[in-house]
C-alpha cells in the first residue's frame, strides 16, 4: 500500500513557480514553521513569560502558513493523512516500534527510579491524544510532505523530519534523543502509509508511558524550550 511520492504527481499552471524554485520552496516553508515554533518556545517565554496571547501569534502564523500552503498545493485532508482506510495498515507498521519503545521506556524508568514508578497521573494527560494529533499533523502532515517534495521520499527526508522534531525538543537531552528516533520512525511509517490517527495513537502511548514511568528529574516534566529551565 505504499503511497506514490508526493513530488512525482505535480502539475503546473500558468501562475505557478518555476519547477526548480518550487522544489526549494518547501525547505523555506519547513524553516518558517520551525522558526514559529522556536519563537513560541524560546523568545516569547524569555521576553514576556507565560502570555498565551503573545504565544498565540507565532502559532497562528505557522498554522496560517500551513493551511494556505495546503490550499495552494491542492492538498486534501485525505492527502494529509486524516483518513481511515489505511489506519489498520499504519497501526500494523507502528505496532512493533511502539511496543519496543514502551518496553525500553518502562525498563529505563524502572531502573532509574529504584524499581518503583513514582510519576503521578495528571488530568492534562487526557488531552495527550489531541496534542499528539496536532504534533503529528505539523511533523508529518506538513514537514514530512514538504521534505518529500524537496528531497524525495526516503532517508534524506526522513532524517530532515527527525532532526526537525528533535530540535523542537531541545534543550532536554533525553527528549531530544527520543524524538530523534521516534521522529524518524514516524516519518518512515508516514511515507509508507500516511495516517495521522495511527501516528497520534503511537505518539500518545509513547508519551504517556514516558510521563508515567520515567522520573520527572530525567524529563523535567516533558518541558522543552526556555520552560525547561523554569
Amino acid at each position, binding site marked *: 500500500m505504499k503511497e506514490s511520492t508526493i513530488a512525482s504527481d505535480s*502539475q503546473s499552471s500558468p501562475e*505557478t*513557480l518555476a*519547477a526548480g524554485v518550487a522544489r526549494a520552496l518547501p525547505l523555506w*516553508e519547513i524553516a518558517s514553521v520551525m*522558526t514559529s515554533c522556536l519563537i513560541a518556545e524560546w523568545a516569547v517565554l524569555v521576553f514576556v513569560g507565560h502570555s498565551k496571547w503573545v504565544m498565540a501569534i507565532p502559532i497562528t502564523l505557522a498554522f496560517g502558513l500551513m493551511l494556505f500552503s495546503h490550499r*495552494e*498545493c491542492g492538498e486534501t485532508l485525505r492527502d494529509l493523512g486524516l483518513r481511515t482506510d489505511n489506519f489498520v495498515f499504519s497501526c500494523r507498521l507502528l505496532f512493533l516500534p511502539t511496543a519496543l519503545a514502551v518496553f525500553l521506556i518502562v525498563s529505563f524508568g524502572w531502573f532509574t527510579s529504584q524499581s518503583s514508578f513514582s510519576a503521578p497521573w495528571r488530568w492534562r494527560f487526557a488531552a495527550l491524544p489531541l496534542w499528539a494529533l496536532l504534533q503529528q499533523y505539523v511533523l508529518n502532515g506538513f514537514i514530512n510532505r514538504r521534505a518529500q517534495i524537496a528531497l524525495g521520499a526516503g532517508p534524506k527526508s526522513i532524517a530532515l523530519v527527525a532532526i526537525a522534531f528533535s530540535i523542537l525538543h531541545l534543550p532536554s537531552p533525553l527528549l531530544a534523543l527520543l524524538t530523534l528516533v521516534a521522529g524518524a520512525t514516524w516519518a518512515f511509517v508516514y511515507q509508507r502509509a500516511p495516517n495521522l490517527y495511527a501516528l497520534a495513537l503511537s505518539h500518545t502511548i509513547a508519551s504517556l508511558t514516558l510521563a508515567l514511568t520515567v522520573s520527572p528529574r530525567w524529563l523535567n516534566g516533558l518541558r522543552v524550550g526556555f520552560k525547561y529551565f523554569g
Partner: protein
Amino acid sequence: MKLPSTNLVHVLIGKSILETVLVGSLAVIAFLTILPPYFHGWGEVTDYGVAGWAVDNGSRWERVEVQLFIDGNFFDTAVANRSRPDVSSAGWAVDEWHGYAFVINSLSAGPHEARVYALRNSGNATRKSLQLMGTPIQFVVGSDGKLQKHSAAK
C-alpha cells in the same frame, strides 16, 4: 499535487516580516520592563571597602537594592539608604538617603575587581536583573588589609 503559485512566496515573506517585528517588539518591551535605563549610581574604593550611591530615576523615593560582585563572584548585598548629601545637592536624587557602603575584609592581598549592580525586580518579583552602577572598580588589597585604588586602573 499542484505546484504552488507566487502567492506562497509572498505569504512566506510576509510571515517572516511579521515574526521579525514580533521578536523585535518583544525584545524592546522586555528591555524596558526588565532592564529599564532608570538607574544611576557610582562606586569607589575606600580604605576598607567600596562605597557609593544608587538612585532609581523611575521611582526616585525608593531605596535601591545593590549587590557587590568581586572578581565575578557575589560578595554581598545592601540597600542604598545611607546619607549622601552630595548626591542630592548635585541634583541626582530628591533626598540624601541613597548611599551604600560595603566592608571588605576577607580578600587575599593583591589586585581585585569590584562591580556594584542595582537589583531590579519585575514580573511580581519572578524576574530579577542586575544593572551595573558606574564602571568596574579596580583595587589592590595591601598586606595590612587596606584597600587602595589600582594605579593601573583607568
